[in-house]
């Protein structure tokens, strides 16, 4: 597959970086919102979630791409679901074994990676028609694009809501509370995740005019 072109040729590199901004799966293609928001109260579970999604998208893309010539088109959805579910089970078991507390915090949302539309979408749109290596990169790129949004939302929600980052009391250390600052308890509540994401989309689209909907 990489006999003629180098492993990270410009074309392949674009597969990796495009989903981070211009084709971001969350803010532009509106995929995978389901699980994106509920885990973003704190930074730590969001990072774990981001890594899990990157792993699942990358490897299920790789596996489906390897099998793409053998899957009968009529039953491809079931085959894809089985592959994704198997990947998610592996990730879930690893999390339970090595990061039990985070796995408890994420609760059902690890399982919900199965129905994350990003993964199905990339399998349908890319892995079924491309060679394994580009498919793998595409998976990493899209997982990272999703993870990026997750981490940005979580950063603001944890900083403004609890005044900490990864559990470290940032605002207390710089002495903001002495000036009368109070944490915004609203940011911890679920609806604020939606509003934060709405604002991120606003910022992104006002910087990038061709994304604006008519």
């Amino acid at each position, binding site marked *: 597959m990489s006999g003629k072109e180098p492993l990270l040729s410009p074309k392949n590199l674009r597969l990796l970086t495009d989903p981070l901004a211009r084709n971001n799966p969350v803010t532009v293609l509106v995929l995978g*919102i*389901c699980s994106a928001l*509920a885990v973003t109260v704190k930074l730590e579970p969001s990072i774990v979630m981001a890594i899990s999604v990157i792993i699942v998208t990358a490897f299920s893309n790789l596996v489906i791409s390897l099998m793409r010539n053998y899957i009968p088109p009529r039953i491809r959805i079931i085959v894809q679901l089985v592959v994704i579910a198997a990947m998610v089970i592996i990730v879930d078991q690893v999390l339970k074994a090595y990061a039990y507390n985070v796995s408890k915090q994420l609760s*059902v949302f690890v399982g919900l990676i199965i129905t994350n539309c990003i993964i199905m979408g990339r399998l349908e749109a890319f892995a079924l028609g491309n060679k394994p290596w580009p498919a793998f990169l595409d998976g990493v790129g899209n997982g990272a694009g999703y993870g990026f949004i997750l981490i940005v939302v979580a950063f603001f929600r944890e900083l403004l809501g609890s005044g900490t980052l990864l559990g470290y009391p940032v605002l207390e250390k710089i002495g903001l509370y002495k000036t009368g600052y109070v944490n915004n308890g609203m940011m911890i509540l679920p*609806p604020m995740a*939606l*509003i934060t994401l*709405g604002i991120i989309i606003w910022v992104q689209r006002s910087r990038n005019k061709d994304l604006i*909907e*008519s």
Partner: protein
Amino acid sequence: MENLANIFVKSIFIDNMIFAYFLGMCSYLAVSKTVKTSTGLGVAVIFVLGFTVPVNYLIENYLLKPGAMQWLSPKLASVDLSFLSFIMFIAVIASMVQLVEMVIEKFSPALYSSLGIFLPLIAVNCAILGGSLFMQERQYQSIAEATAFGLGSGVGWFLAIVGIAAIREKIRYSNIPAPLRGLGITFIITGLMGIAFMSFMGIKL
């Protein structure tokens, strides 16, 4: 009975699938442009959740849980298949969706033609799998409780999507800042609706 009503109302208003857990957002955002289509999808979701949660409840309690297979033979008492739950649940959901589709087609062609296109979509709706996973996590005591939870979650999702569709129909001609049009404003409105729904918190029946 009281308990069932409690679970039902709680899953509609307090633990609303959309406003509290953001489940099923993909189709919620994609299909909520008009009230008519979103009503169709909402009814289909109630249907499928009402079916799959009790079925998965039976599977969880008689096949997967540690010691659940005891009813087959005492030797199987130590078998723990709970790591298989994701794959079992999604298989049940995919086949139930297919089954529900065939049953509706047979007995109510009118309903089928209005739901038709939405039913296959539902197999990958996070709200459906989420319903089963929450059922597993919260360990409901009986199949009736699981059914009440499934139906309630479906009704909650239905309310949310019909509500947002109605609002989106109204704001179509409003003067929204260009970069916020479409997706951005929908998120913010959903957030505001979520804040409104939070006022139901603390209700005890």
